């Protein structure tokens, strides 16, 4: 019996970014690094070490998977591996985003943020 999506929550910020990026399209390592850097305005900079530790974990949890797809022959190194989000990963991502949305849109949080925002 697979783990219910809720049991993965809350996601770590890196996991969230990675799932978001893969939800858009399948990507290889460098693609992920670039996309996430862009998405977060350079705030989240992934290095080979931490990126692949996160990927290893998400693979083990079944939230992402390797694709069979390889890069366009001749254009890219055909050994480069692409990753995709799994259906479970999608559900987890959706649950996490819903959780964040609820958090952000709750009146008390809104009031707090308004009070402190400059």
């Amino acid at each position, binding site marked *: 019996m697979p783990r219910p999506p809720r049991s993965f929550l809350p996601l770590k910020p890196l996991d969230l970014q990675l799932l978001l990026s893969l939800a858009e399209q399948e990507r*290889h*390592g*460098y693609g992920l*690094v*670039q996309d996430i850097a862009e998405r977060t305005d350079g705030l989240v*900079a992934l*290095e*080979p*070490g*931490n*990126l*692949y*530790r996160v*990927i*290893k974990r998400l693979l083990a949890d079944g939230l992402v998977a390797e694709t069979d797809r390889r890069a366009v022959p001749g254009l890219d*190194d055909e*050994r*480069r*591996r692409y990753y995709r989000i799994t259906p479970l990963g999608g559900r987890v991502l959706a649950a996490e985003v819903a959780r964040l949305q609820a958090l952000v849109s709750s009146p008390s949080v809104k009031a707090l943020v308004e009070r402190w925002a400059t």
Partner: protein
Amino acid sequence: MSTPNNRLPTSERAFAVLLRLFPAGFRRRFGQDMRELFRDQVQGARAREGTRGVLRLWMRVVPSLVRAAAVERAENLRTIVREFRSPPLTMHFATTRSDSVFETFAHDLRFAIRMLRRSPVFTVVAIAIISLGCGAVTTIFSGINAVVLRPLPGTSDPARLFLFERRTRDFSEGVSGSYLYYRHVADHARTTGGIAAWSKAALSISVGGEGHAVYGNIVSGNYFAVLGERPAVGRFFAPDEDRTPLANPVVVVSHDFWERRLGADTAAIGRTVNVNGHPYTVIGVTTEGFRGVFSPLKVDAWVPLMMQAQLRPGRDLTDQPWLWLFGRLTPGVTRDAARRELVALTERWVGETKEPASYQQYVGIRVTDLTGLPDDARRAFLGFTMLLLGAAGLVLAIASMNVASMLSARAVARRREMALRTALGAGRGRLVRQLLTESLLLFLTGSLGGIALAWFATGALERVPIPGDSSLSLELSPDPRVCIFAVMVSLATGLVFGLAPALHGVGRDITARLRNDTAASSVRRSMAGNAIIVAQLALSLVLLVAAGLFTRALNDGARVDPGFEPNGVATAYFNAESWGYDSTRAQRFFHALSQRVGTIPGVTATSYADILPLTMSNSDDFVRPDGPGRENDGTPRVRVGVSAIDPGYFEVVGIPILLGRAFVEQDDARSQKVVVVNETMANRLWPGGSAIGRTLGFHGDRVVVVGVARDSKYGTLTERNPPFVYVPLAQYSRPDQRLIVRTALDPAALASAIRDAVRFLDPALPPPLVTTLRQETSIVLFPQRVAAMVTGVLGAAGLVLAAVGLYGLIAFSVGRRTREIAVRVALGAQRGDVVGMVVREGMRLAGTGVVAGVLLAAAATRLISGFLFNVSPLDGLTFAGMSGLFIAVALLASYLPARRAATTDPLTALRDG
């Protein structure tokens, strides 16, 4: 294929090196991707910011990479531990490529346990064999450890303790310390945190009217503090108890004495007991197992040096040498610095004091470890026990070879499994590691068995009575150091003897082995097996020869004519000093005792002597052939053995007087000092003339030779007639004496009669230990007896192991040749032919083993020649006898499988084979 490394840019190569930080599994899975990602990042950074960008990238990548690798490894380790705790039930047939060293090891270990459990007979037999070999080595090592390696019980920081001794400059002769010398060095030495002094003291302690003769030490006040021993109960000596003579009659007792004689009662502290006839207060109890400085001797009481005049009356020992000295180094000071200071202090002492001139030559200082035995005794002990350790090592080697051939056979049986695993992707190194783990596990378990065996064996050895000094007792049982030794030795042997079968088992030729064994590898295997068997047989023959030689030496030693008659003599040891007797009272007592004992039925003569011949208690002294002269005036001295005896001595021990007379009652303290010399002495000093009436200088006296006694053995059986001098006890009194009684009946039966006589004369005296001269002199053969026993047991074990090995090999070869034998039988070979063929194979091996063994033994027995008396280390009888025994056993070992081979039914064998 990816670009070869040498064409990569430097930064990528550096990155590849960094990747090695990650566990292998992680690297294998993501390494390539990581490198590509990094390459992309470098290109991106260079495009945006040039070299600076690349540098910045590096600054970010390295720390994050190191951190990630560390976390990854830690997680891996956790997983391994978790997995190891709950081994899965599935069988890992082909070992997958594993992730890390730990993981691999854990996996190998689990697999090894499972494999060994699946063949319990093999496992149990192999472990038993290893236990036997390891137990032999561990037992001997336990003995060495107990006597010279183990830090003294009760000492703290023993590395800083040292024993030192005044010796001549060339260290050839030594002298113990006088009290004044001790005070001088102890008060002035700066390199030590204390120098302590002690000497032995025969004590008799009466508790509630019951006397006990105990071995005691008379010690300086700081004795316990320097050793680092703390009282288990009560206290040790206070500073003032070390200063004023005769002011503080206090005694510290051993834990054992406290338990046995004082009821293990803390109220015993403060209690008054009688020590040598004087009231002493018990102030403290040592910790359990504390044995003072020389650990083979069991000390039961310690008294302060200041009480010496009371406990050993009649002797002023302030400037006489009688003390052993030891010290504790100040932290940071080397032993050599301490030695230099002690030499300087000693030179100053010799320059300043009026010490007798004869001591002035002792300005050298020898510093040695404080580990349970005096230096000379330790060397002798180590020399002897190392030989025994070597013998035990041979048994371990033989046992290991047995296990190695068992492993080899098993490896052959598992070849198909190995081939299959290789085919499924397991590397050769991986399989070797797996097999090696199995043999290491076997040897490790065997070492536990060995420790258990050593536990029993040392217990048995402890009960072997040591002739002579009754305070000698050993605690040999294995301690943690011994256990570590056993495990290390086993693992090392496991590595050596497990590697070859492992390599052999894995082999190279997979396809051939998946099909079946090939003829070539089978021949190789049997050659290796033969070599192992020959080596085993040779080593076990070496052991047998050694055992035979020791036994011969024992017999030979027993047949050596000692020059006196040790049978029919009872003997009892007395120390009148320890009873608080003065010399007049002691003389009266000894006289009365010998009178009473003389009336016991069967007794034909009684006498006293200070030492008994051949009991390792001989003492040397000097005589001056030209008269007494003065100390060190250059008059020639002759070193001689000396014994003080009473009239009747020669009659009791059976040494004839060749010329002149023996001592008589009239040779007492008031009359002319007289001596009896032995033949060798007479012939050496007065060749061709009569010795009777000649004079000698002895201890400053002019003494007259009144008799010449026949030569006999005094110290050892191997000595060649040393010059010897007897002096009358009445003229040179000794505090301790031995009563000797010749009887026509059984001397052992005299014990109770002698004890009764002592009780009759003074009921307060502790009952003496009565033995026979035969028993006492048996100590000279003690090393031979121990060696014969130990090598005998080891030799038998070695022979059995080798025979089992030979049997196994022959049986294996018979099994393999079943078809061939069946064909021969079918073609008309008789039973006898088959038996002969198989036995010949065994005999060929045994013959080679005998030749190799004889050669090895001939080389090795030279090491033990010092213990063999007149038996040659190449003694033909022993070599021939042992080879014969050996051949007989080998014959039996190959006949059994041969008989089975002969019963082969050709029809069945050819059909089924």
